């Protein structure tokens, strides 16, 4: 159990059944008046922001969050299944919850799954993933159009801009934080 004195940026609490992350916090106390604890919180499931003001004496339940390493198994419709390799526990996440992370999910990729109780609410990816280019146009030698990049599709279906010299079948490194091409895997 937390009290208002525990409130600070980064604290994770449960509110109306959802986990919230405190993203901004201020303590205000007008001269001789009652203290107010002003917070801005982000719902860790749907990302919505919430402003709440608390007073002395109010308490909060911590959000029981756990990060576990799991492997991505397969996709069925909008549902993505992950498995803990130690316990063989499986969790399913919807495409909407995954957001952009779905662009990098290749079978057997190891990710950190954030669990709120039993429910998977998000994943952390490695900063860089290797994915094979499945389709891109041939670069015409001597092209003087000045384009320094071209679209390419990788094996997850994700489309990004790559340098003109990248060819179909090549393995490239993508920065999952920006979604951009990083380098080509040599060899």
């Amino acid at each position, binding site marked *: 159990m937390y009290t208002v004195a525990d409130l600070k940026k980064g604290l994770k609490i449960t509110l109306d059944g959802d986990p919230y992350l405190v993203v901004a916090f201020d303590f*205000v*106390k*007008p001269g001789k008046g*009652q203290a107010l604890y002003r917070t801005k919180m982000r719902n860790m499931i749907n990302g919505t922001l919430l402003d709440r003001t608390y007073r002395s*004496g109010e308490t909060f339940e911590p959000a029981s969050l756990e990060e576990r390493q799991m492997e991505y198994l397969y996709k069925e419709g909008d549902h993505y299944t992950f498995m803990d390799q130690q316990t063989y526990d499986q969790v399913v996440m919807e495409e909407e919850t995954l957001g952009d992370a779905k662009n990098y999910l290749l079978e057997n990729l190891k990710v950190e799954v954030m669990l709120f109780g039993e429910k998977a609410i998000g994943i952390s990816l490695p900063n860089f993933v290797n994915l094979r280019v499945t389709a891109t146009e041939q670069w015409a030698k001597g092209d003087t159009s000045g384009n320094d990049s071209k679209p390419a599709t990788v094996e997850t279906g994700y489309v990004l801009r790559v340098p003109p010299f990248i060819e179909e079948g090549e393995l490239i490194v993508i920065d999952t934080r920006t979604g951009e091409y990083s380098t080509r895997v040599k060899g």
Partner: protein
Amino acid sequence: MKIDALWFRAHVIKAVRDFFWDRGFLEVETPLLIPANAPEEHINPVITLPSWQLQTSPEICMKRLLCRGHQKLFQISRCWRADERGLRHLSEFTMLEWYRADADYHTLMADCEELLQHVVSSCLPKDRVFRRNSAKIDPFAPWERIRVQEAFSRFGQVSVFDCVKKGLYEEILTTVIEPALSQFDSPVILMDYPAELAALARTKPENRELAERFELYLGGLELANGFSELTDPAEQRSRFEEANRARKASGQIELPLPEPFLKILAALPKSAGIALGIDRLVMLTAGADAIDDVVAFTPEDL
């Protein structure tokens, strides 16, 4: 911490000290560890040894000195208030208090004007303005004086008495009134508070609903709280007991009463006293946004 903050702190404190010495005030030191503060509903003392607490303000001892016949006193001392921490609050902070016999809150308002003009001239001789959130506040411009009732009706279209009754006073003050006060480019004095918001202040002779209390704001930041002192021991005791009833009702511990103070209070001359946050004055001088920026160490640094 801002790199030049300690320079500003030292110069602000020196300027304050010079100001009061030059005007014949006696600088005093009173004990920081005391058996009882003035009980307040919303101020929690730091309890140390059994039945001793750190001062939340030097007011009790300062007023006892006035009772002994001193006329003009000031003190710069550390105060402690439990569980107060934010952009403008530290549990341990530095307070300036000054007291005048044969004076009321109007004299203190005049002191405030001269003091801030002196501090800004000494510490920032070129610009002579305070800064808050990149706004400039000029202590040489005519000061705004607004009655609390008027501020609530003008900026919030509400009655301050209603707000107090409904427990919305702090909310409206901090979300509506203080932002409105931050728009003034001169210091602003909010004055004549509802009596229930001024536990140690004298009520106005012509209107018992209002107390002769004022707060000084610069750029929306509350800097000082002053009032004409209540000198009626029976009335003071009943206000302390009322504060303890309110504490009990909200599940807080009741606090001991400062009995020697109540005993001597009848001897307190007509007088007025004020508390001004030195850390905040340094913030305004150094143009710092957070109180963390103007102390050598925050509690988290230790």
